Every structure is written in structure tokens, then in C-alpha cells.
């Protein structure tokens, strides 16, 4: 039985956060701010009437992309130093189980992601404030659901990296899953199309059910449609969905990591 398990997980998480900050991963936020401010000026020129909604949509879409970039960059930096530079040898010969180490890494990258999202939300609120665009509380739910999707992405990326023989393969594969996960509705349409061959249908059917459906986390397109009100049972459902997928991904990741030779 591993003693002080949570303390060790927290130590790894703090170390990950510390390293990511030192590696200037959060500089990505400056790019986000510049992109958003530039975008808001352009939108003001192009469509003065629809400025508010367009700006918010652009802001939240950018937030997801930059959140994804942040977590991929964090995972890349951490894993590159650990595996390619062999930092991991020293950490894993200390009395910490591999599952605790992986959970610590997940928690650490989650900290980085939450920090990034918090700063990006403040930037969006700042732009909305100065542009006199009203934001209601439902935007918290938009950010919340987006964060769920990104947390799930951290978990399956760590799982892929633990399974893959090299870092690049793991990152490419998880980026591919992230992309496919955003297109699951289109996959469904292709499966239901009578012109699709049976073999393709079976292959897509498997992909459809294995790949997490990221479109369910996309609430930003619905913010205006439902008059600023979301069904709380839907929020609970997507929370459960993300929790189950994250749990399964971490379980697969820890199993693979335990068997990995360094």
C-alpha cells in the first residue's frame, strides 16, 4: 500500500504546473489576447450590427483551440523532458507508484488548463466590458462544458502517450481523436447515408462509438437559441459523460504506464 498517495500526486501536479509556467507555456495567452483584440476590431469593421454575438462566438471558439494547444504543448514539454531526456528515471525510482505519477501529471496539466481558461475568460470579459457587450451567467456554463471536453482530452492524450512507443505518435493520434470527436455528428450522417458501403459503415460505426463526442460539449452555439437558459439535466449528463470517459482513459493510461519499460 502506497503511503501518502495524495501528497505525492499533489507534488507531481505542482511540479508539472511549475515546469509549464517556467517553460512559458502560458505565453500562448498573449497570442490569444492579440487574436481576440484583432478579431474584435475586424468584426467591428465588417459587421457593426452583429458585433456582440460574433465576438463572443469567435472568443469562445478561440478559447477551445488555445486551450487545446496549451494542453498539447504542456504534455509535449513534460513528456519530452521525462522520456527523451530521461528525467523520469529519477522520479520513478522514488517511492511513488506509476499510477500516482500519471494521476499527478493529469492533475498538473489540469491546473495549467484551468489557469489558461481563467485568464482567457477574463480577457473575453474585459473585451465584452469595453465593447459594452452584455454577458449573462450562461457563459460560465459554456466555459464549463468546454473545460470538460478539454479535461477529457488531457486524459486520453496521456493514455495514448502511455500506450504509444513514442511521443509523436501519441500526440498525433490524440489530435486526430480530438478532431474526429468534433465531427461525430457528420460521421453519423455518413453512416445513415444509404450510399455508404457496408464496410465503411462498420468502420465508422466503431469510430463513432469509441471516439468521445465533443459536439455535446459545444454549448456556445446554443447560448442564444435557448434564450440564455440551459437544461441543468443536460449539464449533468455531459458532466457524467466526461467523467466516465476521463476515468476509463486514465484507467487505460495507468495500466499501460505500469507496464512501460523506460
Amino acid at each position, binding site marked *: 500500500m502506497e*503511503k501518502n498517495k495524495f*501528497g505525492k500526486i499533489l507534488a507531481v501536479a505542482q511540479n508539472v504546473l511549475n515546469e509549464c509556467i517556467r517553460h512559458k507555456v502560458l505565453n500562448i495567452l498573449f497570442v490569444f489576447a492579440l487574436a481576440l483584440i484583432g478579431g474584435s476590431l475586424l468584426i467591428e469593421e465588417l459587421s457593426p450590427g452583429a458585433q456582440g454575438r460574433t465576438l463572443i462566438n469567435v472568443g469562445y471558439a478561440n478559447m477551445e483551440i488555445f486551450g487545446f494547444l496549451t494542453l498539447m504543448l504542456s504534455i509535449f514539454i513534460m513528456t519530452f523532458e521525462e522520456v527523451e531526456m530521461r528525467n523520469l528515471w*529519477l522520479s520513478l525510482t522514488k517511492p511513488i507508484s506509476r499510477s500516482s505519477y500519471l494521476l499527478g501529471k493529469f492533475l498538473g496539466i489540469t491546473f495549467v488548463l484551468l489557469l489558461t481558461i481563467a485568464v482567457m475568460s477574463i480577457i473575453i470579459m474585459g473585451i465584452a466590458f469595453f465593447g459594452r457587450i452584455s454577458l449573462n451567467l450562461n457563459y460560465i456554463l459554456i466555459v464549463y462544458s468546454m473545460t470538460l471536453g478539454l479535461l477529457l482530452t488531457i486524459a486520453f492524450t496521456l493514455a495514448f502517450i502511455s500506450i504509444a512507443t513514442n511521443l509523436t505518435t501519441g500526440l498525433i493520434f490524440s489530435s486526430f481523436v480530438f478532431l474526429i470527436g468534433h465531427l461525430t455528428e457528420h460521421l453519423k450522417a455518413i453512416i445513415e447515408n444509404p450510399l455508404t458501403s457496408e464496410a465503411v459503415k462498420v468502420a465508422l460505426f466503431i469510430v463513432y462509438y469509441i471516439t468521445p463526442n465533443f459536439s455535446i460539449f459545444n454549448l456556445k452555439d446554443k447560448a442564444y437559441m435557448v434564450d440564455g437558459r440551459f437544461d441543468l439535466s443536460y449539464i449533468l449528463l455531459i458532466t457524467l459523460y466526461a467523467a466516465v470517459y476521463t476515468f476509463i482513459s486514465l484507467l487505460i493510461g495507468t495500466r499501460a504506464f505500469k507496464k512501460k519499460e*523506460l
Partner: protein
Amino acid sequence: MNAIEVKNLKKTYISGHFWNRKRAVALCGVDLKIKEKEVFGLLGLNGAGKTTLIKIMTGLVFPTFGSASILGKPAGDVQTRKEMAYLPEMPYFPRYLTPLEILDFYARLYEVPRKNRKEIISVALLKVGLYEKKNIKLKEFSKGMLQKVGIAQLLLNDAKVFFLDEPTYGLDPLATKQMRDIILELKKAGKTIFLNTHQVSEVKQICDRIGILNKGRLISEAEVKNIKGSIESYFVKKVADDGKE
């Protein structure tokens, strides 16, 4: 009780895809017993399997066959690792952290209580002569200085068994002497030390007993005091004799 016990240990690395599997035998049936408080030096040419043996004992890779135990517990076990310390050949550290931060991280993994942590880290840094540089980022450190940080992390948990893989690699003569003094100090304190090296000169001054690993097999074991002539000639003879067989 033996501090380290290795029984019929075999390791084969498998690489490539299933249609093009490649096998490389690193260890083929190693048996070894190291007593408590003993300093054991493992000698071998490059690629003899020395690092693989140390990696199995520290839990970084897993044996294909056989077993290894440390202080009676399975090698690689979390509880076993609490009582051992390991210095890899050419240790690497996160480049943007400082010695103080990385040692604090390792101390936390060793469950060193918060109230003692600062003092233990300071003592370790003083011992390796890096106390003044404790707040400088590791990316600014030379190879030798990084090796010293590696040595400092050995001293955090009052380990009973030490695994040192080429501990003087990259060190200048002064730092090599410092390293040797630290090992001798550990020996004096009754620690068990497993030393991997191909620096034969080191062995005579530090080790009680040596083993020679060649092509994954332990071809010889001997007490240092019983070796007639230089260890270097003993080593060369044993490896050459093994090549003839």
C-alpha cells in the same frame, strides 16, 4: 540477510513491429548476492548489460525471467524504493527548475516531513558544494554540476541501499575525488552500495568485492583484497578468457 539478491535473471528486449520483431538479449541468467554494508562494483564493457541490471533492480524495466530483491522485498516495489537511492549515468533534470525545487520535489516523493525538508536539502547541497547555486536554473549547469545535483538527491532519504551507475561520469578530477569521498562516507556509515562502472581505478579504492559482467553473463566474482596484481589486468584477463570459450 542479503541486501541484494538476484536469481537467474534474464532480460530480452523486443523491438520493432510484429512482422519485423527484433530480439536483443541483455541478461542471460544472472545470479548475484550482495551482503548488507557491502560495496560491490560491477565491471563490464559497454553493452555488457550493467545498466539493464540496475534498471531491473530499480524497477525501470522488468525481467523476462527470474527475480531480484532488495532487503528481502521485491525489486521495483514502491516500499522497496523507499529504502534505496539511485543515480543514473548522466542524470537529467527539468531544465527550468532550480536545484532547490527539484530536490524539494524528490524529498516530497520520499515522504520527507515538511519541517525537516529544508534542512535535509541544505545539508545535501552543502555536501556537494552547490548550496550557493541552489536558486540558479538547472539549464545553466554544466554536466559535472548536474552530476552533483544527482549526488545530492541520493542523500535525501537516508537510504540503506545505493545504486550508482557510472557516478564519476563527466566529473573533473576534483569532483571525482569529492564523489569518491561521499561514497566512502556512505560506506563508513554502513550503507550497501552497488556501483556500476567501467572506471577500473575507482573500484580498488571503494569496493569490497567486484563482479564482471560480459555479454549478459556474470563471468566472475572476487573479493578486491584477494585480487593479485591490478584490477585492470584481472578484468582484461577474465573478459579475454570468456571470449575464448
